[in-house]
């Protein structure tokens, strides 16, 4: 007996499709239908009730194929809930397939709601642990923390995906679980992401929740919520989870489409007025939580696309004001060859700094104020006049730093090495030959750090001094010792 017949007979109510309006279907009958209930059509298709009037229901269809008027409809008695299990790890999950599996009457597994009310203040704890992305400019100058929501924002093709994958790589290697939500992404893009995970051998720590433009809008809309539910489940099993929502600007457009078809009143830029609320509620599900098994975090990196670097769009400002900061991927910097092209002046981190050690704090401050100065200096270069030695040194150091911050996609640097590298450049320990071949030396150092425990011990003790100044004091001597050991 198929699902439709099962539910028709068990619940004992029937409805008929009266009218069709895109992905919205008007259904009569089903007297005891509940708000937000899932319904199943004779054809096996799934839909969700979202409006109930005296004699009709409006149902959002979860498939792109339409239904004929007169088609029979049955109630399932279920809401949006899904099976979440360990079997999902390393797989690509499609929300529709998951829903269909979840409403199968033969299913005995526990179901988790896709829409959850975010936990209140009694179940949260202040954020205290840093989240290391492995990308120097972020970890040193715009640090993130576990449980933070940091918006990744910038124009198309500015390297946002590369950065996200670097972060996932670093985090999974440190033991966190990652949930990647691909919202309405092309199949090719999803395959590429999968390839990256396979190639870097992290499939045992990632789950991909994906929808493509082939899926119905109703399903694309569910993607980030489902990803959050997956994250919450695994958090409760005792994991720190990283959730990437790629991307919420697409998601907002899909939500707008659904709302306008349902004739909800348009607000700014025709987005429904509850767009802010809808995203805020989603993002508030991330944070640092107290569970029965200990304190675990869900860190969220939502992605937003801008056009021509305009940060003042409606969706963009909504997201910026509901997250705990943003990393701005500047297309101008991208054009100048910076990778990642993160603009430290236009980026914000609201909670990252409180988790840093004293040394890293100092380093971060030095970097930001130096880069500020460096920017101002650039103006002077344009005059072509004689430049004082001070200015020349500043510019030289600045260029070295920028070179250091340029990081290829597959390279992630442990935080202590980042601090050491910065110190070496800052104090001018390395000569020109090293700087010219910086990548090679960095890779070498990272490799030695990861494989030679003696090197690791020495580097760690050098970096974990009481202050940056103290560290600089013993830098040359201790660095020489490290080089000798390596």
């Amino acid at each position, binding site marked *: *007996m198929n699902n439709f*017949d*099962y539910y*028709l*007979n068990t*619940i*004992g*109510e*029937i*409805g008929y499709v009266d009218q069709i309006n895109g992905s919205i279907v008007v259904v*009569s*009958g*089903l*007297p005891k239908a509940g708000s937000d209930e899932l319904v199943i059509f004779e054809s096996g298709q799934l839909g969700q009730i979202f409006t109930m009037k005296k004699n009709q229901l409006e149902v959002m269809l979860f498939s792109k194929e339409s239904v004929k008027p007169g088609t029979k409809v*049955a109630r399932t008695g279920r809401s949006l809930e899904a099976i979440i299990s360990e079997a999902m790890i390393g797989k690509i999950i499609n929300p529709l397939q998951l829903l269909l599996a979840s409403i199968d009457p033969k299913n005995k597994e526990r179901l988790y709601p896709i829409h959850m009310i975010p936990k209140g203040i009694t179940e949260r704890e202040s954020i205290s642990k840093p989240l290391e992305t492995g990308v120097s400019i972020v970890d040193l100058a715009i640090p993130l923390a576990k449980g933070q929501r940091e918006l990744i924002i910038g124009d198309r093709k500015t390297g946002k995906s590369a950065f996200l994958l670097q972060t996932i790589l670093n985090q999974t290697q440190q033991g966190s679980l990652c949930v990647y939500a691909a919202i309405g992404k092309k199949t090719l893009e999803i395959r590429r992401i999968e390839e990256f995970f396979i190639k870097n051998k992290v499939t045992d720590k990632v789950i991909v929740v994906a929808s493509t433009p082939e899926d119905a809008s109703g399903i694309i809309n569910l993607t980030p919520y489902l990803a959050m539910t997956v994250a919450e489940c695994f958090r409760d099993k005792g994991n720190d989870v990283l959730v990437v929502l790629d991307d919420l600007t697409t998601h907002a457009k899909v939500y707008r489409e659904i709302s306008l078809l349902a004739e909800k009143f348009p607000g700014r830029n025709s987005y429904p007025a509850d767009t802010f609320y809808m995203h805020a509620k989603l993002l508030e599900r991330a944070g640092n939580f107290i569970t029965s098994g200990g304190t675990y975090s869900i860190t969220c990196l939502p992605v937003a696309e801008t056009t021509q670097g305009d940060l003042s769009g409606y969706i963009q400002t909504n997201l910026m004001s509901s997250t705990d900061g943003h990393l701005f991927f500047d297309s101008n910097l991208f054009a100048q060859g910076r990778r990642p092209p993160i603009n430290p002046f236009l980026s914000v981190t609201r909670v990252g700094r409180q988790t840093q050690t004293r040394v890293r704090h100092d380093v971060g401050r030095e970097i930001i104020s130096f880069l500020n100065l460096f920017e101002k200096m650039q103006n002077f270069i344009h005059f072509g006049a004689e430049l004082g030695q001070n200015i020349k040194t500043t510019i030289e150091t600045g260029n070295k730093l920028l070179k250091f911050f340029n990081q290829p996609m597959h390279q992630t640097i442990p935080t202590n090495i980042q601090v050491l590298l910065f110190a070496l450049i800052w104090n001018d320990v390395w000569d020109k030959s090293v700087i010219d071949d910086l990548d090679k030396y960095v890779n070498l150092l990272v490799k030695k750090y990861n494989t030679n425990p003696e090197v690791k011990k020495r580097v760690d003790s050098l970096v974990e001094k009481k202050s940056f100044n103290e560290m600089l004091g013993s830098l040359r001597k201790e660095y020489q010792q490290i080089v000798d050991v390596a």
Partner: protein
Amino acid sequence: MDNLSYRSRLMSLLTTREDVYALEEKLENLYTLIGKVNTTLEPKIKDILDYNTFNAFLEDFKNLRLQPNNQTDLENYIDFIKKKIEKINYLKLTLAITPSKELIDEIFYWINKNIGQDVVLDLTVDKRLIAGSIIEYGGRFKNYSIQAKLDAFWAKNPNLI
């Protein structure tokens, strides 16, 4: 015609959906009579409707104080019946065997007594039910067929197949 609550004799003749279709056809034919000049309507109406329907028609006209030969009255009456037809609640009944006229009348009598007077039967025959019936009314659905009982049995005991 404002008196929509009037219990029409014509409507009470309707038992099944087929009856409704037949009546609708007759109404369309009656419609063609309107607009013709110099005709006495009553004999023509009698031609279109069958014996029982015609009597019910006359009774309605008497109760509603209408003149069968009056074109306006006829037009209003037809619209009135059409509105009534729109409001019919159908009880969909699927049986495994083709019912006899007596069986249909019995079922209809039972429905009138227990559910209401404006209900019309929508009958379908489906041998796959084996025996028993499926009843659908007001969005409610009840499957009393042997087929459904067998399906449920096999679902519980898949190893027996």
